[in-house]
């Protein structure tokens, strides 16, 4: 079931990889693969967060701004404000979780639509980041090398020379495994899936749906906050007016490509990661092989649309085929 849902996107992903390999011999170079893996990991983390919200049938448009807030907040606290590392990290984590809590409460207690709540968030958090930084770039300069290796570090693998696993991949791996485990094996994951499909039925079964929904938004904001931290550790600087712009859309697109339905209740963490990888690979492909870099988003948009349309058509064909098969089976014994 899970596999089938992600089959199309996985095939598409491999097709893009093969195409790029044939167009550029450098695609498979270990340097490029490392870069690609690191970017996929960074976007994959925020996409998984968004997937949690999408599972509940909600949406989070504020992801990019939370990335901005934490991405600017951490270096600002560390360098400009001179906080200690643990307290700065704690502050970023608390603020991110607080944002998720706020979203969740506004949505479940006041019944305001997720789209509206998080749209306000999109505007606010970036504004706040621009406010406290005074609209200035913040960064680590030459310091915090150890901390930065969380994002830029490479982990040598045994038996493989010349290729090392970018550190963010470890984060992604751990988060993805935890997320998949949470959604598929724990009772809370089951509750999320149930309420995403029918909030009422879940509530009538004694599930505290409000609490679970709030949890999903907290997870989403926390992962966005973590993403922001890793982004700024990777790039070393963050511009508050730029940092994380449109990332919510990339994350949502990755989740949708990966098989999450915006109607709620469906999730495949594996698919979400492939979705994020596909988007990054497309961008990589365009820089590697084409001179029309500014057409980048036209191409990504078109591929995304083609993927979604193909998926829809395939679904329809499958249903039709299954129907025909069922009928045949039915008529045979008669």
């Amino acid at each position, binding site marked *: 079931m899970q596999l089938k849902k992600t089959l199309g996107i996985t095939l598409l992903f491999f097709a893009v990889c093969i195409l790029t390999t044939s167009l550029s*011999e450098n695609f498979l170079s270990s340097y*490029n693969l490392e870069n690609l893996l690191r*970017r996929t990991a960074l976007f994959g983390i925020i996409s998984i967060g968004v997937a949690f919200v999408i599972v509940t049938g909600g949406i989070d448009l504020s992801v990019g701004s939370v990335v901005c807030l934490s991405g600017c907040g951490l270096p600002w606290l560390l360098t400009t404000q001179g906080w200690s590392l643990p307290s700065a990290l704690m502050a970023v984590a608390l603020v991110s979780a607080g944002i998720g809590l706020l979203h969740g409460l506004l949505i479940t207690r006041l019944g305001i639509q997720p789209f509206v709540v998080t749209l306000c968030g999109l505007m606010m958090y970036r504004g706040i980041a621009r406010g406290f930084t005074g609209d200035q770039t913040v960064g680590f300069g030459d310091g915090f090398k150890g901390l930065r290796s969380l994002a830029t570090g490479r982990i040598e693998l045994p038996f493989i020379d010349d290729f090392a696993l970018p550190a963010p991949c470890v984060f992604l791996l751990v988060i993805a495994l935890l997320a998949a485990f949470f959604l598929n094996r724990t009772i809370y994951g089951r509750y999320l899936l149930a309420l995403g499909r029918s909030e009422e039925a879940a509530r009538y079964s004694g599930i505290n749906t409000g609490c679970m929904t709030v949890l999903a938004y907290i997870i989403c904001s926390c992962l966005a906050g973590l993403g922001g931290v890793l982004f700024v550790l*990777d790039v*070393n600087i963050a511009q508050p*007016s730029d940092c994380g712009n*449109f990332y919510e859309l990339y994350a949502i697109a990755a989740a949708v490509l990966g098989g999450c339905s915006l109607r709620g209740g469906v999730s495949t963490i594996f698919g979400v990661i492939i979705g994020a990888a596909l988007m990054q690979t497309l961008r990589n492909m365009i*820089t590697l092989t084409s001179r029309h870099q500014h057409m980048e988003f036209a191409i990504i948009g078109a591929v995304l649309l083609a993927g979604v349309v193909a998926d829809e058509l395939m679904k329809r064909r499958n249903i039709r085929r299954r129907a025909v098969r069922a009928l045949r089976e039915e008529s045979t014994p008669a």
Partner: protein
Amino acid sequence: KPSGSGSGKKKVVFVSNGVDPFWTNAAAGVRDAGPKFDVDAETIMPTEGVADQKRIIEDLLTKGVDGISVSPIDPANQNDILNTAAGRTKLITNDSDAPTSNRLVYIGMDNYKAGRMTGELVREALPQGGAVMIFIGRMEQDNAKTRRQGTIDGILGRPEDPTRFDPAGTIIEEAGFKIMGTLTDNFDRGKTKANVEDTLSKYPDIAGMVGLFGYNPPIIIEVLAQAGKLGKVKVIGFDENEATLAGIQKGTVHGTVVQNPYMYGYKSVEVLSELIKGNTSVIPANKMIDIPARQIRKDNVDTFWAELKKTLGTAK
């Protein structure tokens, strides 16, 4: 890594810090220089700021280019990627320098100095001082920051100090001038227009307006024309947008400070091609190839424009 491109020509790439007509002029220089120095030359403009620039440089290193000329968005914090690039290919910087990195040479000018030149134009235009508003795309990037600070220091006639910083919201009253603030628009032209209009509403007696990003001055002219205040409010521009130059001709703009982006592009390709050949003599001792900014006023605008048309014309 050595180039793998099929044509056998060496490959050099010019990476801007964003998308702007300014960089289009630079791209013309890159295009012209390519055949001259027998290299495959290309220009790439990142759209999404510093993370995007990093991604593009990484991908270029993957692609295996022989030289990169980059305009770092925030040099102080980009040493990592610049040093990575410097380790894998010939790296030079343009427009904005990263002196602490391993770049081989810097081609460009000093934004602080160019800002001071702009400030001088303001003093000329407003000999008895007055209220001035500064417009800029963004405050964060390094070239914008120093250019703006240079402009403020130039207007106020302060001693040179590139490290000084006045926050955007403070009103600075010195030497007969009153700098009312700095308004940003994040490249949304509609917002620029609103900023200029709102300034006219807020300070009906504003004496001067300074547009520090290339697209700012034309919009200032546009708004002043609509408000019937052309000539009454002095306009000082930056860069060589056509409308800015036309304004100088007509007298509605006092003057502008131009860089020479065409030359940034051209020179970048030239220097990189020499470096690839192994000729390091193109690197001066101070590691800076200065392409100085110039002040354009009514007296030299015609010659400058004709020149500009000539260089850009050859590109087409």
